[in-house]
């Protein structure tokens, strides 16, 4: 029969303490998140209405809605992913399918890691130097295209990393079978590797939608105006090259810190919309990933 010595009892007790201690640490990170997000949503909810979402801001943002900011964010996200997704996917194809293990590949990988670590504000400075003044899309003024390109450079390393992971998940035998029937490297990639990893690649790209939508510092230097008075409430409010736009993230910053006579709940409502967009996009990407994992055939 097993008898419990004091030593074993102490051991067990420490085990329980450790479990609760570490669990508490995890909880201490997660619970405040729920409380804070809940508080913001409760404070912002009274302001959120159909009119709030579909009207343009008026009186310096104090009245009206946030339509112009929503459309601006959409423009920036769309154009930035239009650049970063193809380049990032092809770069990952190069690193995973073509590159051999040597010093050059090592440097490319190092560059990807470092690009991911560059502070967002430095990306913004780069955007000012390279896209606003050097490429000069809009005569030395900020423009949507400059902001989109800046964010494209910023999201590139993340898209490369997630795509590489998706490509690496395709078993090597798939490629070997394809090569054996005489397909070239590119035919193998195009007909076998990409179709089998497209869902993983898409998940990575979708996650960048929310990152791009929330980014503030780089776009406020390169293409986003604090406030614009617009009459139209259509979809085509801006010209991508000659216009600056409003954006949800920047609008929140402006309303929370600089605008006057704003009702108390307005910034909370903008934050709620921003959090909502980000969480919906992320939840979609995550459930997509879980679904794909469950029906994986190999």
């Amino acid at each position: 029969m097993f008898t419990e010595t004091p030593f074993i009892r102490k051991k067990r007790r420490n085990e329980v303490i450790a479990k609760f201690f570490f669990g508490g640490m995890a909880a201490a990170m997660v619970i405040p998140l729920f409380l804070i997000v809940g508080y913001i949503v409760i404070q912002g909810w009274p302001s959120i209405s159909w009119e709030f979402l579909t009207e343009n801001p008026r009186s310096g943002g104090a009245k009206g809605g946030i339509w112009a900011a929503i459309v601006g964010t959409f423009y920036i996200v769309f154009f930035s992913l239009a650049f970063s997704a193809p380049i990032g996917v092809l770069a990952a194809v190069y690193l995973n399918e073509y590159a051999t293990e040597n010093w050059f590949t090592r440097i490319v990988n190092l560059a990807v890691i470092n690009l991911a670590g560059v502070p967002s504000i430095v990306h913004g400075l780069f955007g000012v130097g390279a896209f606003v003044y050097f490429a000069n899309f809009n005569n030395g003024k900020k423009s949507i295209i400059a902001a989109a390109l800046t964010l494209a450079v910023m999201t590139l390393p993340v898209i490369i990393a997630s795509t590489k992971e998706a490509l690496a998940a395709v078993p090597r035998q798939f490629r070997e079978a394809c090569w054996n029937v005489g397909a070239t490297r590119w035919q193998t990639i195009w007909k076998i590797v990409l179709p089998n990893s497209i869902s993983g690649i898409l998940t990575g790209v979708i996650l960048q939608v929310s990152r791009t939508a929330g980014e503030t510092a780089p776009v406020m230097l390169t293409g986003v105006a604090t406030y614009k008075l617009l009459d139209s409430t259509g979809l085509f409010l801006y010209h991508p090259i000659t216009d600056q736009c409003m954006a949800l993230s920047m609008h929140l910053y402006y309303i929370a810190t600089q605008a006057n006579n704003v009702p108390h709940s307005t910034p909370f409502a903008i934050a709620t919309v921003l959090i909502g967009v980000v969480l919906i996009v992320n939840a979609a990407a995550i459930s997509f990933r879980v679904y794909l994992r469950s029906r994986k055939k190999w």
Partner: protein
Amino acid sequence: MSKEPTEVLSPALAVPIARRGQAAVLGERVIEGLVYLCGISAIVFVFGIFFFVFKEGAPFLAKLDFKEFFFSKEWIPTSSVQPKYGIGALIVGTLSVTTLAMVIAVPFGLGAAIFVSEFCTGKTKETLKIVIELLAAIPSVVWGFIGLSVMSPVIIAVFHVPVGVNLFNAAMLLALMSVPIMVSMGEDALKAVPDSYREAGIALGATRWQLVYRVLLPAAKNGLLAAVLLGVGRAIGETMAVLMATGHAVNIPDSIFDPVRTLTATIAAELGETSHGSPHYQVLFLIGVVLFSITFVVNLAADFIVKGIKRK
């Protein structure tokens, strides 16, 4: 019957091997060239970032007094009489916010990583990982807004201090923001410890806690260090949250409830008001070069530590 080898090798039999048209071969070459170009784009962009940020700031280097630039705490760039460009106080601001954030985030981040990796399984584990991923997705401007409108009144009420936007507020936000990356990197590091280590420990009668303390932490310490470094890199580079929550006053802090200002927030707040090519504009780009260099070193260090483990 005599063999006729020439018949076997006749061109008629060789034909079925499909020949691809020259256009197809050429097209493939072009695509592969494109793939290669995209592949090296990361290198191009890293150099491009350094080049363009440095290029915009470089004209000021001739007039720059390095000692004053790095050590003077007088940042008065808009003075029309005698502007002063000392980023000493800003560096102290960045370092103090980052340090305090790490003091809070490292135990919590690594503790949560240990919990996720070693103490929970199945559904709990998946749920926790997803929640932490969502934590990472909240935009920094929302964090800044949280600091401004939620944390600030709480800090005033709890600690009885006059201003709620200060060093402590920003450090709390940065801690929450850098925890996700620490948890995911830390979990990877713990996962990289071979299971045979765990099995050996359990076979000797060790509890989970003893296993973590005596086996896993020593075995994974490089990976955990890299996780912390990545968190540091993220905290140094964070802009909007610190811009909104530090109080944004050029100040060497005496206590954790003093307002400070960071390098990143200074660029974000002031670049829009400078004119292209003015000394103030150039100095802000030089601050960008300083920031780029700091994070470059931190990320490189983290990468070397991680690669060191993989080689073992």
